[in-house]
């Protein structure tokens, strides 16, 4: 309190001195020196005041900060004081600039003239058979295996698993490397989702993480990366997270229910699976998406009449080419 009062007095003193200077047009060095001296004292008081106004978290060394204010006020008489006050009082009130727009305009990609020099590309039909042919040159089989990098995962994984037992070490190791990197990626995602779930600040975020975890564990199964007991373990984990995610969700979309059905079926809990499939249809999933699974469940129950009926319904949707052979087998085309 007293400090600010002191500063006010100092300022008034200085103002009157300045006014006097304007009036008198003094040219005396003594007057200049004495003005600078009183001004320095006033500046010191003002700097102390400014230091009080400065939010404490901005201060690292009070002496240096004081020196900053003091020199500003001292070297620019009167205006320096105004400047320091503006800096302290106005700057924090300034509106923050709008963040840069999230969307950026990108130019058209340019054609890079750097060409592939080797026109001899791998062309081989029947990749799977070719890979199994142990008499084919190793180099060609290696190339064939590398091509699988660009194949859909659920197709590539069984082939890669087969190759793990190949006689050629190079092929084994490459297949291992390819499988491993896919699994590594999924496991890294799972780790991240687990951490996100632990750190979730509210229920909604937590549920989102659980849903993601369920999907990721299912992905391990779908991509054919887990087998036997581990496949079962993945299915259990996926189901566990999915049910947590669903427990307090009202009017969820159909996706999770379909996934739940598939997981229950995977775990052999067929009756519950059927319920889940029906729920997914209730939530708006088109019927043909679940009909094949329902038919599978009916088949497992040896209820062939029901299989026929369900597949018969599928006939109404001819845009499912992959199911056509099944329909043909059952004499439905």
């Amino acid at each position, binding site marked *: 309190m007293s400090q600010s009062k002191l500063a006010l007095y100092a300022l008034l003193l200085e103002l009157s001195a300045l006014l006097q200077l304007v009036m008198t047009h003094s040219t005396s060095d003594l007057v200049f020196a004495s003005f600078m001296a009183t001004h320095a004292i006033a500046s010191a008081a003002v700097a102390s005041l400014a230091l009080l106004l400065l939010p404490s978290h901005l201060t*690292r060394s009070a002496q240096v900060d004081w020196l900053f204010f003091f020199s500003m006020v001292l070297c620019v008489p009167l*205006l320096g004081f105004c*400047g320091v006050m503006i800096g302290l009082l106005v700057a924090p009130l300034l509106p923050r*600039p709008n963040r840069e727009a999230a969307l950026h305009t990108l130019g058209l990609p340019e054609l890079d*003239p750097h060409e592939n020099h080797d026109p001899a590309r791998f062309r081989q039909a029947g990749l799977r058979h070719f890979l199994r042919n142990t008499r084919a040159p190793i180099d060609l089989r290696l190339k064939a295996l590398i091509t699988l990098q660009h194949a859909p995962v659920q197709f590539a994984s069984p082939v890669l698993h087969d190759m793990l037992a190949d006689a050629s070490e190079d092929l084994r190791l490459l297949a291992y490397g390819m499988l491993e990197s896919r699994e590594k990626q999924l496991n890294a995602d799972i780790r991240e989702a687990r951490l996100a779930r632990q750190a979730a600040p509210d229920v909604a975020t937590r549920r989102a993480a659980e849903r993601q975890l369920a999907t990721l564990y299912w992905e391990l199964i779908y991509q054919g990366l887990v087998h036997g007991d581990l496949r079962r373990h993945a299915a259990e984990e996926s189901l566990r997270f999915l049910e947590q995610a669903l427990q307090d969700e009202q009017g969820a979309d159909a996706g999770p229910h379909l996934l739940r059905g598939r997981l229950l079926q995977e775990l052999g809990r067929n009756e519950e699976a059927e319920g889940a499939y029906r729920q997914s249809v209730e939530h708006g999933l088109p019927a043909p998406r679940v009909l094949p699974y329902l038919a599978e469940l009916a088949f497992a129950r040896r209820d062939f009449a029901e299989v026929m009926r369900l597949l018969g319904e599928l006939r109404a949707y001819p845009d499912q080419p992959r199911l056509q052979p099944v329909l043909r087998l059952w004499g439905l085309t």
Partner: protein
Amino acid sequence: MAGIGFELRNLLRRDSLLGLLQAYSYAAIIGSGPWVLSIVGILFVGLLSHAVIVPNFLVTQFQVSVTYLIAGSLILTGPLQLAFTRFISDRLFEKRTDLVLSNLNGILLFTVAIAGALGVLCGLTLFSGLGVLYRILMLGGFTLLCCVWIATILLSGLKRYGAIVALYGAGYGIVVSAALLARPWGLEGLLGGFVLGQFVLFVGMWLLVARHFRSPRLLSFEFALKEYRYPSLMLIGLLYNLGVWADKIMFWLYPDTATAVIGPLRASVIYDLPVFMAYLFIIPGMAVFLVRIETDFVEFYDRFYNAVRSGGSLTYIETMRDEMLYAIRQGLMEIGKIQTLALLIALIAGPAALQALGISPLYQPLFNIQTLGASLQVGLLALLNVFFYLDQRRIVLQVSVLFALGNIAFTALTLHLGAAWYGYGYCVATLLALVVGLYQLDRKLDHLEYETFMLQ
């Protein structure tokens, strides 16, 4: 068995390997542009006040005082300007935006302390016997100008050209209008208006920085750390500003060409007015330079270094190099064209303009040669800017030394040769620096990829 091979992954991080090429660079030299605005503002105040303020020499005293303030503050802050922009660009490239404001404050403390000490010292010695209020205003003006240059260079490094021009417009608007209002108080009134305008300009720029960058601390001094110091840039800043002012200072000091105006301050009546008028004619060149270099050239520059950094093919890199070269040639050529046009206008309209302003036609030849020199200086600015982009500090230093020493030597020669030669010194020095710079640029761009890759 753990061979070495598997460790290689740690090495193939491109960023650390190629080092930090500056994505940002310095529109730093452009920072010298604003002083042209300052000169124009002061000329304008002078012209408006000529008829009103009596006696007339008070206006001259005002103009000379401000000119000295500008020259002195530019030379004093010269060593800091470039090095500090470089420091800020590099930190922004590292996304350390938290360092901007606190380091600006830090360097301001440093600047104000030195400028203030120097100001008080001069006030007690050189300016002894002059009005106390005049001395106080000179002290405040000098300190503020130093801060203004630092803030200007920072904002131009951040490419906030629009804001710079707007703030300078506002600042000098206040200078002019405050000067007009304060005319009754004579020299102190005009000077007070000037100081107030500078104050508004500086506070505006500081608030702009404070608005965009927050720092966790009021002050920090990372810019002074040894690894962030750029001695070559400091030297360049000093030499370049010295080079720009050398001929003027020499004309002020030379007894035959100058007279004392106020206290220790001398002015050259025959030299100063044509020189500062000539600067009016480089504005079109500056505009072209900004547009050409800062858009075309920078676009290909960015693509070149992006391709280098993020895996473009060699052919693409070379194409971008060629485009860059083409943009530089185009830019310089256009500056040349527009300045030729400006020069022609100066030649044709010069006599009429001088007459209208009541200036003796004897100034005409000097005005012509000064306009040529100033035009060449625009080219030199553009060239130095390109070198800064390419981080060729060694070449810039070389050219700056040439420019500063050339200006001193040739100006001394013309002073010796007599009035007919006045102005040629500055002109020849600029031309020499420009030619050497162009030659170096050609050589540099030929080897650009080689140097980018192999000399690291």
